[in-house]
């Protein structure tokens, strides 16, 4: 293997695939990054066996070949090199790097030993605009469970049907559902559970991408491939049955309040300071207005032996005056990803689920289970 590429491109590529390098692995080679010539470009790959990231760097290939070297060592070294051409030459298992007057040799491990990255050729194939996918992931992935006693909940359920992609995530206490548009309809209906971590990694790559993203699900529904312009992400899928979430979304409510999203978020953050000492509980009280005065939403928190606070924002309230208590974190989580200026809060009783949806966008629903408190 002998090739030349730009330091900036190599550093960028290593930074991207570095996210998939295993940190605590029993398989030492997964701490390495795979360098291989591929169709006139240099392909960088890393995997932690759950996800695999590949990135292609343009360059001048003089001789084909492949090797794996410790990812951390290579990345740190390349990052400090001047922005110029980097010559990479493989001699046996020793990789030589040269950039202007800097030179390094690092011993590598045979590329054959690197875990093979699954190739997904056929199966379900869908295309989506990268902006739409980015938006969908940001609104849903945070609601997935962090711990894996119920593995399906650490994933995001993705359902492909017609030209819709519906992403849904839930931990035990909240549910987020987002409907995105595919660029072209798919046949039939396919549902898979993608690890939320894989989607978070993917969403880092999306903002730089203008082209659409190609999503391929393997026929056995065991892996999914996201193909971007210069990068690919392959992830294992989570096996299991995702809860039937549609029945968890309340179909009606007795009180609906429309409030300014950022005011609501701010007031919740204020209350959450006091809520810190009270299991994060914030109490919402909705009061409808008269013809002359607007309705209001008060947000308060109270911590025994610490103190209490109360904030108030304007709200258009329809229905009976109501109250409900939530964990402040669940409210701030959802309010900070809603981009629309106004959000509707729909509730029925203090013990039934609360529903949030942005006003003017039909695609997003967020359900939060209340906390039961003494009022």
């Amino acid at each position, binding site marked *: 293997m002998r090739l030349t590429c730009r330091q900036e491109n190599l550093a960028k590529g290593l930074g991207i695939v570095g996210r998939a390098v295993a940190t605590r692995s029993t398989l030492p080679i997964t701490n390495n990054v795979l360098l291989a010539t591929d169709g006139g470009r240099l392909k960088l790959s890393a995997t932690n066996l759950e996800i695999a990231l590949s990135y292609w760097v343009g360059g001048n290939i003089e001789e084909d070949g492949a090797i794996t070297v410790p990812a951390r060592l290579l990345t740190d070294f390349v990052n400090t090199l001047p922005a110029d051409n980097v010559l990479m030459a493989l001699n046996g298992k020793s990789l030589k790097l040269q950039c202007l007057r800097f030179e390094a040799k690092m011993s590598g491990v045979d590329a054959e030993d690197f875990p093979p990255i699954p190739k997904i050729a056929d199966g379900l194939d869908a295309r989506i605009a990268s902006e739409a996918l980015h938006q969908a992931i940001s609104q849903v992935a945070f609601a997935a*469970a962090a711990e894996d006693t*119920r593995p399906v909940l650490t994933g995001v359920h993705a359902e492909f049907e017609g030209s819709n992609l519906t992403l849904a995530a839930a931990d035990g206490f*909240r549910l987020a559902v987002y409907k995105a548009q595919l660029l072209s309809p798919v046949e039939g209906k396919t549902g898979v559970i993608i690890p939320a971590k894989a989607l978070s990694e993917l969403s880092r790559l999306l903002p730089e991408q203008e082209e659409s993203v190609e999503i391929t699900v393997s026929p056995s529904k065991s892996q999914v491939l996201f193909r971007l312009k210069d990068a690919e992400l392959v992830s294992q899928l989570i096996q299991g049955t995702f809860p039937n979430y549609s029945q968890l979304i309340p179909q009606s409510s007795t009180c609906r309040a429309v409030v300014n999203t950022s005011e609501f978020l701010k007031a919740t953050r204020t209350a959450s300071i006091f809520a810190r000492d009270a299991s994060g509980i914030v109490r919402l009280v909705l009061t409808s207005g008269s013809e002359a005065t607007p309705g209001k939403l008060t947000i308060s928190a109270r911590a025994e032996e610490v103190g209490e606070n109360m904030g108030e924002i304007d709200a258009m309230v329809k229905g009976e005056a109501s109250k409900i208590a939530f964990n402040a974190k669940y409210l701030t989580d959802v309010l900070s990803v809603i981009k629309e200026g106004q959000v509707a809060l729909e509730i029925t009783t203090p*013990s039934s689920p609360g529903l949030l949806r942005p006003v003017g966008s039909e695609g997003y629903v967020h359900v939060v289970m209340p906390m*039961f408190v003494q009022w």
Partner: protein
Amino acid sequence: MPIQVLSPDLVSKIAAGEVIERPASVVKELIENSLDAGASQITVEVRGGGITLLRVTDNGCGIPAGEVDVAFQRHATSKITSLEDLEKISSLGFRGEALPSIASVSLVELFTQTADDAAGAFLSLKGGEVIERMARGRPRGATITVRNLFYNVPARRKFLKSWATESSHISAVVSEYALAYPEVRFTLYIESRVSLRTPGSGSLRDAAVELYGLELAQELIEIAPNDQDVSPKVGGLIGPPQAARSNRGYMSFFLNRRWIRSPVLAYAVEEAYHGLLMTGRHPVAILNITLDPTEVDVNVHPTKAEVRFRNEHIVFAAAQKAVRAALVARMPVPQMEVPAAAPLKLSPLPIQGVLKASPSGDDNSVDSLFPSPTSHIRPPTSQIPILRVLGQVSNCYIIAEGPEGVYLIDQHAAHERVLFEKVHSQRARQQVEEQGLLEPFVLEVSPQQQDILNAEVDNLKAYGFALEPFGDKSFLVRSIPAVLATSSKNSGQGLAEALKEIADALAEGRRTGWEERIEASLACHGAVKAGQSLDPEEMRELVRLLEKAAMPRTCPHGRPTMVHLSASQLEKEFGRR
């Protein structure tokens, strides 16, 4: 066999068997007599496990020469005269059984003199019969020598254990009385070696130094007697939780200065330590209980080791409250033991005191031999100092710096303590916070657990679990306590484990402490686990909450939440000092 009245000899032997079980029982009876005689020095000599020879010498009031014969008659006593006296016994003995019982099973010599008599009396008895009598002089007091115990009761003699075992029983008896009467100088010689010598300074801690060693005695926490004239009054010394022992042998109870065995009090003390000791560990405690004599019946058992309280629950509550209060007020952080360097071990031995002691032999000089160990101990406080978090070790311990060195905090134990107190206070205020579950959780249980949970639905609701029966052997969980909701794993399998643990805790019976067990179990399941990496903000928050906790030193199961490596230990370790 025809019915016949037993011979006096046989009767006395049977009666003796009730009082005199083994050499230690003789020692107990004789020491009690000495104490009732107002002795300030009691010397006990033991040879051959107390079977060959037992001698108790005191400087008490002695027995008048004219009464020495009566003393060995059954039911003869100078301690009570009427039934009214029996109602309010203040002396240790009163049944008038000890001396005759001892005399009937051994060779006894009594040598005594009162302050008034011109000459002392010497009396020698064999099997209860006087075989020698003479007038001899001696200082005020009495010496009773018991030889050849059980010489005429081979059955009893056969059941005696080895000399060493019998000696250790005697040693235990003397120890208990030494604690009960710290103002009396006790000296115990076993096979001519001094086995125990208490200073008789009147300070319970000084006596404890002799019995438990300086190290432990210094750590003992004093129970300040409640000043009010309430009965019962509780005083004494208790060990800090880290000085716990693996058996109950270190709990001594004294009721009106009488050493008693009391499962009730032992239970009260263990209850007071609840949540501070690991299971299988038992506290060190010396408890003096003062109770109106009419409130207690000591005449239950010939050896008077067991007593009957008129209001057992009041005594229980008083003891438990006093011990708990002392514990809460003064609980030191366990010091880190650095095993590698021996010189680091701190032992402030009062060597100067020993050197200064005057060899005059005067009783009072003993005080200077034993400078009050309390002066060496800086009073530990219950609260922990303000700590600055430095980092996390093995995703398990938080390292923090305080004004007096480095603290290692077990993140799980610390969080458990914080949550435990939170749940407890929420429950007390009936304001338990509940988090609704998005999807009701189906809990599968065993038939026994099902019965328990069915019966306790309301109690569980009070803790924030909304359970609905859901067919055979399963329940639908609709909401969980907010403390559990912090980690989403508790929406699934973790929740099932927590609930089953609680059901099992309830199944063990609701006698006592089941609430605490539920609270501890909630805290345990809600707390961060060992192995969970925390960011600096989370660690600071946890330490902040721990600083505010009422009992920050231990987790609800009794494990310490933190160990302390003092600045001076560090300096020594690095050879700076």
